[in-house]
């Protein structure tokens, strides 16, 4: 049924949709034609990415490292072993987590370099992504990534089988997976402290005295001093 406000706004032109509709989906809908080699990618990376992410995508400076923590075995199984409980690997790098190569293409194209997003040419995005994938041993050094072969690359993503969909946490009317009961009296609890703030953290956020109101039922504790015993 038509509404009295239906006339408001106007149709988008094809050029307008093209200018903004930049997203790329896991099925590669939205992916523009093009290609870029690892070699091209290395140049782009060194010039425009390495300052923040490090020469091997390993830098911690601005963000968790992009590369690292994946193995050839992971590429086989599509599950990153370092994510399993008990692993000693210290970081969760991007390549360890990401299941879909489209995500990286889309994100680099959309948001990187961080201080000049949307300035890369399409082929540069292919190239720099090829370089990242090469650093993760997902593609060889002489690889050229393109819209034609990206679906093949997807089959080598180390964590491609690592995602689970748990519908109850996606739907508003789902049921929670963790259950408590509303016990009111003599409830089961040790009622003892299992974890408390480490000493060094006491003033790691500044003096809490200065983060509370100067009147009221409480004051901020002076965390420049140890707690009163």
């Amino acid at each position, binding site marked *: 049924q038509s509404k009295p*406000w239906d006339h*408001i*706004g*106007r149709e*988008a032109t094809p050029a307008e*949709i093209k200018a*903004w*509709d930049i*997203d790329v989906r896991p*099925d590669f809908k939205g992916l523009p034609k093009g290609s870029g080699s690892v070699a091209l990618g290395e140049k782009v990376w060194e010039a425009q990415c390495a300052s923040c992410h490090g020469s091997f995508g390993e830098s911690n400076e*601005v*963000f968790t490292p992009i590369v690292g923590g994946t193995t050839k075995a992971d590429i086989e199984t599509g*599950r*990153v072993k370092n*994510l*399993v*409980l008990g692993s000693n690997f210290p970081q969760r790098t991007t390549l360890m*987590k*990401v*299941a879909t190569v489209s*995500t990286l293409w*889309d*994100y680099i194209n*959309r*948001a990187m370099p*961080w201080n000049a*997003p*949307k300035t890369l040419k399409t082929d540069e995005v292919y190239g720099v992504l090829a370089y990242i994938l090469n650093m993760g041993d997902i593609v060889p050094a002489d690889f050229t990534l393109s819209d034609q072969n990206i679906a093949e690359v997807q089959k080598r993503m180390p964590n491609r089988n*690592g*995602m*689970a*969909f748990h519908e109850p*946490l*996606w739907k*508003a009317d789902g049921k*929670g997976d*963790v259950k*408590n*009961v*509303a016990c*009111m009296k003599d*409830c089961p*609890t*040790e009622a*003892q*402290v*299992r*974890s408390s*703030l*480490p000493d060094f953290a006491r003033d790691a956020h500044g003096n*809490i005295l*200065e*983060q*509370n109101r*100067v*009147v009221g*039922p*409480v004051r901020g*504790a002076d965390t420049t001093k140890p*707690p009163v015993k």
Partner: protein
Amino acid sequence: AIAAGQATRARAAEGDPAILELPEHTRGLGRPVAERPYGLPSQWEANLQRRESPGLTRVPQASVSFTPLQGLFGIITPSGLHFERHHQGWWDIDPSKHRLMVHGLVKRSRVFTMDELMRLPSVSRIHFIECGANSAPEWGNVALPTVQYTHGMVSCSEFTGVLLSTLLDMCGIDRKTAKFVLAEGADGSSMTRTIAIERALDDCIVAWGMNGEMLRPENGYPLRLVVPGVQGVSWVKYLRRIEVGDQKWATKDEAVHYIDLMPDGTHRQYTGIQECKSVITTPSGGQMLLDKGFYNVSGLAWSGRGRIQRVDVSVDGGRNWRTARLEGPVLDKALARFNIDWVWDGKPAILQSRAIDSTGYVQPKINQLRAVRGTRSIYHQNAIQSWRVAESGEVFNVQVY
């Protein structure tokens, strides 16, 4: 000196100098109206600021600032203290140049100016927004000193805008094929998030108003998506585009972040709902009780699945519970303020609150959460918070179960 001491004592017996000696403001002429055409808090309130958590993030344009819940009242968050989460910095966009495009699996695509959007039928609703990573640093152990840092990525405001369903209807979405929409921002990060079509057609708002005025720049001026009950990252700021589609997008912030690592090494993807949660804000970590005796224990509760039905409070580490008073209005997917009487006897105590929502879900204990999800999932930590009151009156962040 002795005489002066005696005089002081005599005066003290007579009464409080703050009463006996009329202050300047009782004996003088104050400041004119509209001296501040846009007003600000008292100079005495400067301690209550939004603050970063040092070490949490590495660059301030891809970071968080936290709301000082320890000093707030009621359910409305002052917009000046609304928490911030930016991925590529915030902007103050010229609204006359801002556009919203709706396209994809629709009969006709649409471009709107702000002038056009603001002519459409609008709604005004109070909702909470919580970052999916709120309380995240404490999946493992206690790490943060105060409620500002443990829970300060939640806020609650009255939002005004057009229902997303109104826009989708205008465009004639294809009800057969349309399964998801993508929301995209206009900032550098051009944040993108997938929303299920049922959510999109339910209570999502394309909002320009927040607490009576326009959105603040830090919160997406001039347009943001409001996705009630869902984690803040989906409330795309600087909203420029809605695409209707038939598949999820697996964008960076739903394929690399905002995914919950389970003990078996899988990640749960698309876990948007902010489940029922509560926290006592007064007294809370880092505060000092001034004295023994009566206190009004006060806090906040919320649920992404509906209304708050009840909040219980324990002062003995969860052994015994009493039901708190809820202040009205108690609204769908909004903060609720609770209060309860407590007489502190000066002995150590452990304060906890436990919320129950309209679905009957009971806010879990941290060990119950961990039993299902481990300690590494980062997001959606909605455990009961414990505050230990020491004999000194100082309150400490602890985990008790």
